[in-house]
């Protein structure tokens, strides 16, 4: 049986799984790109200092 012949709920499930795998792959790829351009250091820089905006000072 080909994917086209499969019952509709099964095709829907297969499509959903494909989207899940795609989002997972994209997220891992984005993390890798972010690490390669030094984004975690920017996050660290912001997070280790008191964020005056966050606490309502300025």
């Amino acid at each position, binding site marked *: 049986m080909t994917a086209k012949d499969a019952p509709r709920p099964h095709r829907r499930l297969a499509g*959903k799984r494909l989207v*899940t795998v795609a*989002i997972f792959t994209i*997220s891992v*790829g984005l*993390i890798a790109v972010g690490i390669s*351009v030094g984004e975690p250091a920017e*996050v660290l820089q912001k*997070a280790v200092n008191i964020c005056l905006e*966050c606490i309502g000072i300025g």
Partner: protein
Amino acid sequence: MKQGTRHLIQALAALAQNPHLGNFITGRIHQGPSKRLCVPGLNCYSCPGAAGACPIGSLQAVIGGRTRSVSYYVAGTVLLFGVLFGRLICGFLCPFGFVQDLLHKIPSPKPSPPRRLDRTLRWGKYVSLAAVLLLPALVKDAFGIGDPFFCKYVCPAGTLEGGLPLLATNEALRAAARFLFSWKLGLLVLVIAWSVLMYRPFCKYLCPLGAIYGLLNRFSVYQMGVNKSACIHCGRCEKACKMGVDVTGNINSAECIRCGACKAACPTGAIWSGFFKDEKTAVNPSQTPPSSGPSVGRD
């Protein structure tokens, strides 16, 4: 799962994300390397106890930075959390969600807003998300730096977890507090009062992180579902759901925080949940509804 067990997990998750309790007395914040990692829930990185970075604060800091207007690492981390757990994070891991859960336990009248108003207000979290993603990139100062608008003008978690403990222990910060702090304190008081009367108003109407995770609920590795052949349409699940989800119609709705109240209320065990489960693997075809059972009508 009993709601008491969920609250215990929530308390442990809040503690795991804020283990530096001594800082609440000294008025300092943790400055270790763990702060380069984003935590899954809304947890201000200026909270004295915080071990990691708030994903929404980090997203805005990077987008509003001088070097770039796009975030890869933080966006990827949030997407990864979302595709693995969906809003299970809201129900089990978010410290500010836990605070709202506890506030709602305070005895008081619990009025429901008109359905139409409730539906309209739920779009608010997507407006918040748009503001988080766009404003810091589009509105920059002369130095090319964009404000973290959501953190600065809205986020009550920042005021509760960061603002109040730091101002309580730091005289210089107290002296610097002006109208903005009063505004944010007012918003926090409003959210606290609202949370006593209504279940998780911030999560329903304002949280940009909940909006992202909600959009991923349908595709997350953690899934919930209803075995239609075992469902007796008693309506107990929808009565138990405090987020107003149409459980039998769309259980993986963007509003579901996966708290499990519907599953616990189901008399026939028709609701399933878990990682790597779907209609095909979770449902036993031989499972049929019991011949008799109490019927509870919907309101």
